């Protein structure tokens, strides 16, 4: 049920972490790679400088001013092995390669075409024998006892292997950092998952609440969320109390009104029958009839508004769940007593004990009670009730069907009986509000009520109600 959109905390946290980690590790790669390369180059250059120093020290000039290098006194064997990767060469002015190492064989090193200060060290890259890249160090020396153009001493070393080493290092470094990135991302995912677990638990608790499997947000939550949970539960409880109180007060008002109404009705009725042999006078009888009529009107008004109050806040409380079977059984017990004189056969198909209505128990009693009571009033001999789960096109619904073998209701009158206070036949006792009240309550729960011809011959009423799955 977790939201996967851009507003998901999880996506946000993971996205930011991944971005940050990737940038940081890329930076680390560049910095470490650069440091390594610089360090290796520095050492390489230092080694080459020593070779240059050695070469400088070994150069001697013969009386004609020509330089001589005693190769035997140069320590590194690579000087004499052809194309060994370590080379020296001595230039003077335009004369290139006056002297060179045996390792150069028949090639020469190109020196930089620039002017060098005396004694300055010049470092540049060039191309050595066989086209390998080399690092070239140059120094200009001036023989103190000789005049003329200064001498340029060059040493060069193959840096191909060095470059390869640096590349290898970079590759290994990149691989290691990638593994590190993967591990860090995994850790971040675990952290986000663990960190957000209470929120997901909260989400599940909310779903349970909405589906009527619990009446409050359950379970301990971390301190940051606990305040929210507590606050929510407090609101829920207060809401429940308010609804409860409103219902109670509406009920109390109704009850408080009904006893005086009963007194009025009784008084009017008894004044209409001949008392002590004397018939009531015409004005008295008219008054009594007026009182009786108005008592009936007042009773209907009270019933109607009480039912409206109930229906209005019917769906106000989440987390309600009522098993159907016990409610139907309880109502059938009532019907068997209240309609005992009618000797009806009350049939009830077995109801799945896990089938539960998502709402208030009182409202379920009210809806099914009115339906069964209506059916019992009209039935000739039999009333049947069944409840089942309907896995409808959109969402599963609870369907309760009540049928009777009474006269039924003509198709063109079925809509009318669902509206306020219409009675098809005034001869059967009842307020006429029964079906209208049921219709209101069903609508308040987002359900539907349908009237039909019953296979038993009378009316079939089916109500579809939200179900706890």
């Amino acid at each position, binding site marked *: 049920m977790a939201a996967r959109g851009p507003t998901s905390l999880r996506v946000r946290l993971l996205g930011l972490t991944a971005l940050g980690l990737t940038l940081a590790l890329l930076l680390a790669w560049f910095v470490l790679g650069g440091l390594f390369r610089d360090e290796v180059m520095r050492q390489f250059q230092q080694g080459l400088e020593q070779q240059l120093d050695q070469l400088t020290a070994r150069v001697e000039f013969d009386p004609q001013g020509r330089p001589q290098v005693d190769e035997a006194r140069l320590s590194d064997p690579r000087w004499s092995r052809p194309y060994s990767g370590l080379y020296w060469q001595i230039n003077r002015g335009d004369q290139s390669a006056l002297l060179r190492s045996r390792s150069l064989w028949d090639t020469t090193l190109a020196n930089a075409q620039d002017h060098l200060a005396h004694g300055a060290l010049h470092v540049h890259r060039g191309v050595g024998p066989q086209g390998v890249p080399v690092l070239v160090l140059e120094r200009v020396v001036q023989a103190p006892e000789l005049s003329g153009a200064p001498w340029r001493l060059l040493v060069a070393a193959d840096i191909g292997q060095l470059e390869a080493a640096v590349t290898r290092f970079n590759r290994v470094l990149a691989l290691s950092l990638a593994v590190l990135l993967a591990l860090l991302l995994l850790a971040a995912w675990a952290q986000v998952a663990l960190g957000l677990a209470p929120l997901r638990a909260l989400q599940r608790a909310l779903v349970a609440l909405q589906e009527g499997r619990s009446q409050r947000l359950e379970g301990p939550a971390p301190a940051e969320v606990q305040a929210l949970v507590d606050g929510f539960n407090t609101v829920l409880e207060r809401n429940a109390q308010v609804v409860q109180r409103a219902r109670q007060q509406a009920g109390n008002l109704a*009850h408080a009104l*009904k*006893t005086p*109404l009963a007194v009025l009705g*009784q008084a009017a009725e*008894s004044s209409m029958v001949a008392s002590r042999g004397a018939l009531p006078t015409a004005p008295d009888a008219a008054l009594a009839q007026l009182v009786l009529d108005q008592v009936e009107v007042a009773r209907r008004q009270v019933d109607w508004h009480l039912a409206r109050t109930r229906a209005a806040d019917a769906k106000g409380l989440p987390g309600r769940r009522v098993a159907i079977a016990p409610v139907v059984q309880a109502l059938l*017990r009532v019907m068997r*007593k*209240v309609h005992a*004189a009618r000797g009806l056969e009350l049939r009830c198909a077995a109801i799945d004990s896990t089938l539960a209505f998502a709402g208030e128990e009182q409202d379920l009693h009210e809806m099914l009670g009115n339906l069964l009571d209506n059916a019992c009033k009209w039935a000739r001999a039999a009333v049947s009730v069944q409840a089942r789960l309907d896995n409808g096109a959109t969402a599963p619904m609870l369907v309760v069907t009540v049928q009777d073998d009474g006269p039924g209701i003509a198709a063109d009158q079925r809509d009318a009986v669902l509206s306020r206070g219409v009675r098809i036949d005034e001869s059967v006792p009842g307020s006429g509000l029964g079906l209208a009240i049921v219709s209101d309550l069903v609508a308040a729960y987002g359900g539907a009520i349908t009237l039909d011809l019953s296979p038993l011959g009378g009316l079939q009423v089916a109500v579809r109600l939200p179900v706890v799955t």
Partner: protein
Amino acid sequence: MRILLVEDEPLLAAQLRQNLQDAGYAVDHADNGRDAWQMGGVQPYDAAVLDLGLPVQDGLSVLRRWRSEGIATPVLILTARDQWHEKVAGIDAGADDYLTKPFHTEELLARVRALIRRAQGLASPVLHWGAVSLDTRSSRVALDGHPVAMTGHEYKVLAYLMHRPNTVVSRGELTEHIYAQDFDRDSNTIEVFVARLRKKLPPAMIETVRGLGYRLAAP
């Protein structure tokens, strides 16, 4: 037939009492739960009309106590509480019927009659013995279809006997069921009523079972 009326609203209680008496019942009245419980436990009522919202002890508790003490008097709950869950609670507490206020006297009387009849296993509102018929709805007695005039007490004795066709009913029992609690009773008057009934109806109808009481003879 003797009825316990439990109602705390004085006006309504007075009206109900009058209506029930007019219909031929002996009526005792209690206006709170404790009295109701005690009276119902001691006196042999044929039915009780019980309000739920009562002082001292509410009607449902009274009913539950009666039932737990094995008192099987048929009880009609008469209350303004008309929600179905309240009806369920009433019936499950042991009530036999449930009527909500405001109500029509006729309906109340019909239900009380039916309760008393059902308690004796009788289905029809009109009881027959040979050529004698007793209509519980109108409190009228007829012999061969012709109305027989009788006083309230004569009717009460006959109705009680006809509700228990194969049972011997003692004089004491008859006294308890035709007089209300506060009535000055004299069991000898029962003999007077029976004697008058024997004059108005076939004389062999009511047998005297010596030392025990009266019984309806086989028709």
